[in-house]
């Protein structure tokens, strides 16, 4: 038969198997990527985040206050991490993203409860990511009515108030009162796009030189490795800024995302983040033997970045180990920076708080990269 020859087909298939076996890294990735996806989607990601950090701002501590806290903890959604001395501390904790909620119990809370005066209880929520807070808030609303049913017994249980909560629960959704998902996603997209393009593009730019053999020529000239690196990176930094500008314009004019903080501050922080991604790209290029491998490694980095950083799923909803992993990734911190500046109006002090982990990441990755960088061909 002339259309299809079995031996010819076998020849091609055999060759392909041999090549596959030679390329260990690709083979590893073929196994590694699905494993990673299984672990991340199966164990780390949780669309119904629980155990969210909640601070207590309590002016009147007593048995009723303790019951409310206990009932909220028992719901599984809230995890009380500490007490705040004043309202300024509460605002700061929310701005830094240290807590998701602050529960305010007013002065005279116990007395007013006993007298049946329905004291006002305020729950301040960092609602910049509506997905993270909405379930907890609705759980609290149903829980409020029953939270004190064991405490307010006998004469204290007012028949008139059957069914209604003994206190007046008010929810204050800060930073994104209408719960618009785009407010959270669009700024986050800036970080995701930068991660994806910057890592891939640098990893490829350098492995391409090695794959095509132009590296040999370059290395035989007096050019210094630092000149090669910087010369290769600067055009991509500019490219990154074009992307940032595009997304920023779209955020403001298309999606009407509020811009509470300073844009120059955001542009300055972006540089740190771009450098972090470029350094990852360079590190990959020192390991990868060809462009395909570089691409796969970039993907391997991109996957956890997008899943564990709090871009797609609420960060606090993940198990502790996943949060620790997420804390290593620059995107996690950059998301806090960009959302902090745009939605919360964060200033330099808060931004630095999130930037230093990225800077630390750069230092580690660059030193690894320099260690692996081959100045010669061997």
């Amino acid at each position, binding site marked *: 038969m002339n259309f299809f020859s079995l031996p010819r087909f076998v020849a091609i298939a055999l060759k392909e198997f041999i090549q596959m076996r030679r390329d260990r890294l690709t083979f590893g990735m073929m196994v590694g990527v699905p494993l990673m996806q299984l672990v991340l989607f199966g164990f780390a990601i949780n669309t119904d985040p629980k155990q969210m950090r909640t601070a207590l701002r309590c002016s009147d501590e007593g048995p009723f206050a303790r019951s409310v806290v206990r009932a909220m903890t028992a719901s599984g959604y809230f995890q009380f991490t500490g007490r705040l001395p004043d309202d300024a501390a509460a605002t700061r904790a929310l701005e830094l993203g240290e807590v998701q909620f602050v529960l305010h119990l007013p002065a005279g809370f116990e007395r007013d409860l006993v007298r049946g005066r329905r004291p006002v209880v305020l729950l301040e929520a960092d609602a910049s990511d509506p997905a993270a807070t909405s379930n907890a808030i609705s759980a609290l609303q149903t829980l409020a009515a029953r939270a004190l049913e064991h405490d307010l017994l006998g004469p204290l249980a007012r028949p008139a108030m059957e069914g209604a909560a003994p206190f007046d629960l008010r929810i204050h959704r800060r930073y994104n009162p209408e719960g618009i998902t785009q407010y959270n996603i669009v700024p986050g997209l800036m970080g995701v796009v930068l991660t994806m393009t910057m890592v891939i593009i640098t990893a490829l730019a350098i492995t391409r030189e090695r794959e*095509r053999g*132009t*590296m*040999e*020529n*370059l*290395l*035989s*000239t007096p050019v210094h490795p630092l000149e090669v690196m910087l010369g290769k990176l600067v055009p991509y930094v500019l490219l990154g800024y074009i992307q940032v500008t595009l997304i920023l314009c779209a955020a403001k004019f298309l999606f009407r995302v509020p811009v509470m903080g300073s844009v120059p501050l955001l542009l300055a922080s972006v540089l740190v983040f771009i450098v972090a991604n470029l350094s990852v790209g360079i590190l990959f290029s020192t390991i990868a033997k060809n462009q395909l491998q570089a691409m796969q490694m970039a993907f391997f980095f991109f996957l956890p970045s997008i899943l564990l950083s709090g871009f797609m799923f609420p960060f606090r909803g993940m198990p502790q180990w996943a949060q620790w992993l997420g804390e290593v990734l620059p995107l996690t911190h950059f998301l806090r920076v960009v959302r902090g500046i745009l939605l919360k109006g964060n200033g330099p002090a808060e931004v630095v708080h999130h930037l230093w982990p990225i800077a630390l990441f750069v230092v580690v990755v660059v030193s690894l990269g320099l260690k692996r960088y081959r100045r*010669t061909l061997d």
Partner: protein
Amino acid sequence: MTAPLSGTARQAAIEVEGVTNSFSGRVVVDRIAMRVGRGEIFGFLGPNGSGKTTFLRMLCGLLTPDSGSGTCLGFDILSQSAEIKKRVGYMTQKFSFYENLSLEENLDFIARIYGLPDRRRAVRESLEQLGMAGRKHQLAGQLSGGWKRRLALAACMIHQPELLLLDEPTAGVDPKARRDFWEQIHELSAQGITVLVTTHYMDEAERCHRLAYIAYGSLLAEGTTGDIIRHTRLSTWTASGGDLHALCSALEKSEGVSQVVPFGNALHVSGHDAATLELAIEPFRHGGHIWQRAEPSLEDAFISLMGEAKDNFQ
């Protein structure tokens, strides 16, 4: 051909000793010592995989030798490769320019890297000398194989290096361009520029002032063409006419014949001892062939060297 000056008489451009390099435990350059005088055209020959490219890479600092020492243009090959790189033009065996840059852009890039003071002029002159001024906007990737070699050669000479390391510069280049190339090399040599060139072509080897022959990482012979031929101590006869094919098979088994090589319509029969060789060909004297005593050619010498070289990969 200009009279070759002795390599030891003048100042050395390359002087190395005991240079050794291995890849994953396999020695591919084994204790090579070499001295090339300034302005000399030095040919570097050897079978495929003998370590020529590896040796050139060590000279210009692309690879670090496992052991050995020496100088290149007076700079230490181990510690001063930055100085060496400024003064050396290295032409790689494989095309290593940017295929998606035009000819002019490639040359301009190299000129910038070397920081040439009058870059534009250098690029223009280089293009003119290459005879490609009219096609300077063509992408390098679209050039034919031979033209790529010529572009690479032009590029490695743009910064007027003192030493040229050329790795098979004329492979795949047409005869006219090769002749132009060698004329240019001799002009450069007259200006005092040193050229170390690898080649597999015998006619090119004969155009060099001095030669080195390397096989399986070891330097086997060094000197002028005459030195190398004498070194092998070959005697050669040529046979023409008659059934050369049968003669060839018969002679190969004979005692005293070390190699039988067909050259066109003639057979080169060589042996290391003139007397035994004559005895060996005696029985075939009257088979209708025309026998003539001949000077062994460089090619006979190289084939003999290659045959003697111990293949350390076997």
